[in-house]
């Protein structure tokens, strides 16, 4: 038997194996066996007719290539018009949690400004010295974070609404609120860049006026970041409650967000009582990091752990007569 003709037959066989993959065994095997028979007959007939190995191979490959559109159409017809991609909802939730962690990191890595620093004018000069690209990338990342939060909120709501509509709404709303705040923050950032330019090029009373306006914009921007942070944190806590209650993750994992919430509340109490910045920052960061830790563990758990089959919520045992 000729090597080239056999290789061509194998290529066609691999293609058949690929486009019949996932079909019912009867349909899949029938098509593969019928094609295997055709390829064998073709090789034998060619050899009997003294056709060269190369010629049989070319004929085989030609028949294969010309038939590819029909193969694809056949597959689509066998499957029906609906392509049913079933991703278990646990995987969706897990992936979204990981995405949330990435968002945390992106949001946290955006350089901000310190309005408490003496000489806010210096901050504006620093901002003006940044390249346009750096300032645009900054604003772009904040806007992208906003849109990604909307997607995360919508995804989590869609995945969890059948389990707990109220809590799913809270999570979705919280993340969308954070997203809006991020988008507002992005706009404020761009406005601040414009004001920084105006501050550097102006003098006298007008410069003072620009400085006051810029400071107000910067404070508003910081408030949006803080509010966005709390919206995300609250959504994360609600998510932790749903995940624990629905047994999506081990119950013991609920301890992590509880510690996180305690740390954040502690930080708020410290802030209200006028505690030092360093201590406050440490407690707040600890709260944030424990929350991120929970998101990571829960996310990877949902993505990779074997999930038990979902209970049939609509099927209930009949009440005894």
């Amino acid at each position: 038997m000729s090597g080239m003709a056999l290789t061509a037959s194998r290529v066609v066989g691999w293609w058949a194996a690929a486009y019949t993959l996932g079909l019912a065994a009867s349909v899949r095997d029938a098509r593969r066996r019928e094609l295997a028979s055709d390829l064998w007959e073709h090789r034998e007939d060619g050899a009997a007719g003294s056709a060269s190995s190369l010629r049989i191979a070319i004929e085989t490959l030609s028949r294969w290539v010309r038939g590819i559109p029909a193969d694809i159409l056949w597959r689509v017809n066998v499957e029906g018009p609906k392509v049913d991609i079933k991703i278990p909802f646990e995987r969706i939730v897990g992936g979204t949690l990981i995405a949330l962690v990435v968002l945390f990191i992106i949001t946290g890595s955006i350089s901000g400004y310190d309005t408490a620093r003496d000489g806010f004018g210096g901050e504006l000069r620093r901002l003006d010295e940044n390249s346009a690209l750096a300032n645009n990338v900054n604003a772009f990342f904040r806007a992208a974070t906003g849109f990604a939060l909307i997607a995360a909120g919508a995804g989590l709501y869609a995945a969890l609404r059948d389990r707990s509509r109220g809590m799913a709404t809270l999570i979705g709303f919280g993340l969308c609120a954070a997203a809006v705040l991020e988008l507002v923050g992005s706009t404020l950032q761009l406005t601040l860049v414009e004001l920084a330019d105006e501050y550097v090029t102006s003098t006298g009373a007008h410069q003072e006026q620009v400085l006051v306006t810029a400071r107000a914009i910067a404070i508003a921007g910081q408030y949006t970041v803080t509010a966005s942070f709390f919206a995300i944190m609250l959504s994360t806590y609600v998510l932790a409650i749903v995940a624990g209650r629905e047994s999506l993750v081990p119950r013991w994992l609920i301890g992590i967000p509880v510690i996180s919430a305690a740390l954040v509340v502690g930080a708020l109490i410290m802030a209200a009582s006028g505690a030092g910045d360093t201590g406050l920052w440490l407690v707040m960061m600890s709260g944030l990091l424990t929350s991120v830790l929970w998101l990571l563990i829960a996310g990877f758990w949902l993505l990779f752990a074997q999930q038990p089959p979902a209970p049939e919520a609509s099927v209930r045992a009949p009440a005894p007569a």
Partner: protein
Amino acid sequence: MKRKPGQLLSIEIAILQGAIGLMRAGALEFYGYAIAKEIRDQEAARRLTAHGTLYRALERMEKLGLLTCRWEDPEVAAAEQRPLRRLYQVTAAGELAVKEAMPAAAATKAGAQPLERGLSPS
């Protein structure tokens, strides 16, 4: 390809004509490669019908009731040391369909509009 109900495609006409040619030669049943070769010989074509085109058409024609099919006896294939063949046979509806489609196909080749005939899926 979208087609009107009952209208035969050119590949289907070619398969039916090829199958009837094989029947006249004494082969009541045919298999994929045999019909591809018969079509090439009848149409004096240079190339064999593509795998995808041929087997998709055969499956469709079976659903339309123009052909019946069965897997051959495994012992026969084993005795001849070859893979199992899927054997097709033209039904009465298939014979009627090709008779009715022949003038239409000829007219189409001559540039006229294709005729239609009644076909119902079995």
